[in-house]
């Protein structure tokens, strides 16, 4: 046998399709991350599209997917690079390399984007047009590596880019995107893993609080709300100590929050009505392996997509629900599906 015999390229044209890309992380050090595409009209999924279209593997640990114009930027955490792919033909359009442990990409303009990083103690500044690293924002806080900022997700608000620091950290950073400098931060409950901004200019942050036996921290996870102008805390809701909530997202109208805490919950982005609504029940019992590990909402029709890694070494599953939590479809993906990016038809 020969590796050459495994080449079996296909060509795709999905310019008239609306659908969702699913990033399948794959197993660490196994180089088996992959990308799936699910078409809304036909309810069909094609797995492993990057490999099928290009004959090259996506890489090791697909962390996140971001679509900008007609290109998908797939951040490959343990490959130190970002793969760029045409969203209609799935063809390889280049890559941004030389990144330490990249997590997410956040676009500021056609010529400027930030890339967060787990270990670099910095955010890289990228020129997406030239596909090169053009600078970095130093996040070094003078502490040992144990307490260095690990930058994760990024959101723009006015001229600022807000960054959450999850791994062994409790900070939300404010970066001035004009001067590319860290200018401020707020301290939140340990290990903020996700955040969103609502339509009232409030920042909602979800923290998992660490884990049992962690040398960093193990406190109750919490959902917090801050006023962005005053940076004052407006609201906090704590979870139980053995719970590990994550993946806070917001709908297109920026008035309803969704997150995973074993099951999927919904809560209005409001300080008045803060009742948690159990929207989708996990098929797994608490304590078993597997479970819901990713969530996203179709910005057009508000359908909810959740991913399930099953046993982490077989094909994962994605479930499609309407906005009321009624199951519409389910399908199999690659190994450990976890990130989503929606594509609209060009018609």
């Amino acid at each position, binding site marked *: 046998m020969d590796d050459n015999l495994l080449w079996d390229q296909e060509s795709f044209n999905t310019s008239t399709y609306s659908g969702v890309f699913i990033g399948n992380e794959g197993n660490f050090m196994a180089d088996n991350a992959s990308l799936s595409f699910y078409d809304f009209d036909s309810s069909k999924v094609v797995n492993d599209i990057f490999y099928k279209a290009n004959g090259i593997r996506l890489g090791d640990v697909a962390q996140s997917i971001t679509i900008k114009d007609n290109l998908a930027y797939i951040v490959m955490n343990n490959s130190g690079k970002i793969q760029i792919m045409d969203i209609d033909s799935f063809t390889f359009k280049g890559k941004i390399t030389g990144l330490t442990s990249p997590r997410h990409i956040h676009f500021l303009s056609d010529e400027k984007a930030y890339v967060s990083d787990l270990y670099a103690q910095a955010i890289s500044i990228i020129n997406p047009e030239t596909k090169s690293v053009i600078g970095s924002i130093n996040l070094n806080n003078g502490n040992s590596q144990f307490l260095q900022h690990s930058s994760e997700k990024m959101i723009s608000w006015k001229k600022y880019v807000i960054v959450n620091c999850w791994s062994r950290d409790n900070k939300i950073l404010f970066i001035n995107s004009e001067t590319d400098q860290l200018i401020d931060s707020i301290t939140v409950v340990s290990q903020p893993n996700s955040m969103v901004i609502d339509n009232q200019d409030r920042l909602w942050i979800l923290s998992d609080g660490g884990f049992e036996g962690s040398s960093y921290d193990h406190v109750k996870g919490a959902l917090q709300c801050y006023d962005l102008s005053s940076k004052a805390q407006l609201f906090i809701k704590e979870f139980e100590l053995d719970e590990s909530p994550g993946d806070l997202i917001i709908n297109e109208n920026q008035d309803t929050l969704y997150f995973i805490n074993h099951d999927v919950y919904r809560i209005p982005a409001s300080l008045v009505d803060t009742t948690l609504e159990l929207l989708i029940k996990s098929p797994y019992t608490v304590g078993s392996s597997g479970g819901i590990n990713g969530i996203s909402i179709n910005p057009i029709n508000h359908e909810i997509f959740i991913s399930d890694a099953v046993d982490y*070494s*077989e094909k994962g599953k994605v479930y499609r629900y309407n906005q009321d939590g009624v199951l519409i479809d389910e399908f199999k993906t690659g190994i450990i599906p976890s990130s989503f990016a929606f594509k609209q038809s060009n018609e």
Partner: protein
Amino acid sequence: MRLNVIIILILILASTLDAQTTLSDTIINIGPVQVDQNHKLVTPEKSGMQTTKVDSSVLAENTGTDLGELLNSNSPVFIKSNGRGAMSTASFRGTASSHTQVSWNGINLNSPLLGMVDFSQLPVFAFDEIEIFHGGASVENSSGGLGGAILLNQASNWDTLNHFSYNQGIGSYSTHHELIKWDIGNKKWNWQSKIFNIQSANDYTFINRAIGDLNPQTGQIENPLDTNHNAQYGLKGTMQAFHFKPKKNQVISLFQWNQINDRLIPRATSYEGPNNDNLNRQVLNDSKTQLKWKGHFNYNIIDVTTSFTNQNSSYFVKNNVNGLGEIPVIASIIRQNSSFNRVTYENQKWNNWRFKIDIKVDYHVLSGEDTVLKSTFKHNRYEIKPLARINYSTKQLSAQALFRQEFIDNERMPFLPFFGVDYQPLKKIPFKFTGNFSRNFRYPTINDLYWSPGGNPNLLPEQGNTFELGSTYLNQKERYKVKIQLHYFYNDIKKWILWAPSFRGYWEPQNLNKVVSKGLETNANLECIKNNWKLQCNMVYGYTKALNKHEKGSETYNKQLVYIPVHSGNINLRITYKNYHLRYQHNSYSERFTTSSNEINQRDWLYPYFMNSMAFGLNCKWKNYKFQSNFQINNLFNETYHSILYRPMPKQNYLLTLRINYQK
């Protein structure tokens, strides 16, 4: 096509051999067929057991390699190797890496922390004897060998003393080894010493299918020719054995084994981050000392052994952070200090009966810390492992029962019996049936129980019931030997421990319902001598079904466990003519799955591979000196293959070995 290549190579070789014949003035005697110590066909202490002793010529030919490579090409044990010099673990009869128990001079080498043994850490040169105990037979040595056990031993040699040898190997990818051995002594005492050094830059090239470059002219995707960076390894150490006979019936022995393994761990092949980032390095320091007293008193044999071992293993992952130099993101050190104590008593007073009692008391102290993650741990483990054996044998029948009752941290473990029978139905035909039934268990490792995060203190020991049935035909005379073995095994393992990520976001071990591994092992060994020719051929074939029986109706139910090939086999052919030798080796594995649901698609599937290697060389003698040379071609047909998913393996490569031996 391939056959033609082989024929041409053999012809070329034959002609060079012919040309060289005149150069050597001494012909080294080919010698008689090696007597198979393993089988007088029916032996009391191996009743019902399937065991294989690695042939001394195989040991000699693989002396510069590690045990993983040797087992892969000469035994039914499947070795899952991460590449040359990198972590290699065993899968014996479809079981997990922690189900192969490995011992050196009776000391268990399986880490109490991880449960498994890394075979790349075990240099073949260091050991004098290697014996494989298949399946249930391992109960004699320890619990936990649900797949089997591998015994590494130092032999005490009182006959061929006072010799010195030096072995120099030079090979592809800046690989070299230096092996020095001497023994001196007399009838009263002897000292055997070994020094070894094995190093490789391991920087072979490969077409990197994980990286695409866009050709600026054509717009086509190209795969670069890449180098296996950050993969160098080195293993160096010493092995000492000192034996002293204070009286004729008593021997006191002292063994000392020290080694250092220093290696880098290559990054994912798709890595395109900065060159100085994601650097992985592992350094293992290992020291073992053993003191042993053995005495024969009429029908009684008493053996008292005490050993102390010390291991330090450090692992670093570093990134080059701008302006700050190399910053570790992982810097962990794990220390293991263990004391192994053993008393055995054997009685052979009655003709047909034999009795043995074997008591081991082991104590482990494990500690470690990660200076970056600021985590520390300390755990002790105390094990008492008594075993009783009773044998009954006649000329045609031999049976034995073993009873093992272990206590770990004062907790009583499941009782393990082993019943085995060998039966030769006809006196004149050297053919026997073998059968056994045994129970076994494996206690969770310290990591399984206490690793933070995820360790699960409520884990139960894995429990196995094994049933085996086999037959052996062995006919050995001075000029030829034929040995054919066929064994069926059925292994039912309950509460199998598997680590899987949990909803908490980290990996946790859990007890699965059940795994069944069953299959066939066959082995054919032929040797014959005629005039100046000697032909040796050994063939191994294994059929292994290792099935997940955890959850009926799930995607993974009844599916083959990941990385376990259903079919595996190897052929070793060796032809000796006067003082020349030619060896051909073939190794095959059927497809392997890397997903628990056994997806057959291009990316998650490991295609079958067929590896071939060839070696030839000559020996000559001058006064008290013997010279031996061997030239080995690995991956003879320059094939692409993978032992684990996507990890490139070297193409055709070479190793030249020269050995000089002085005998007083």
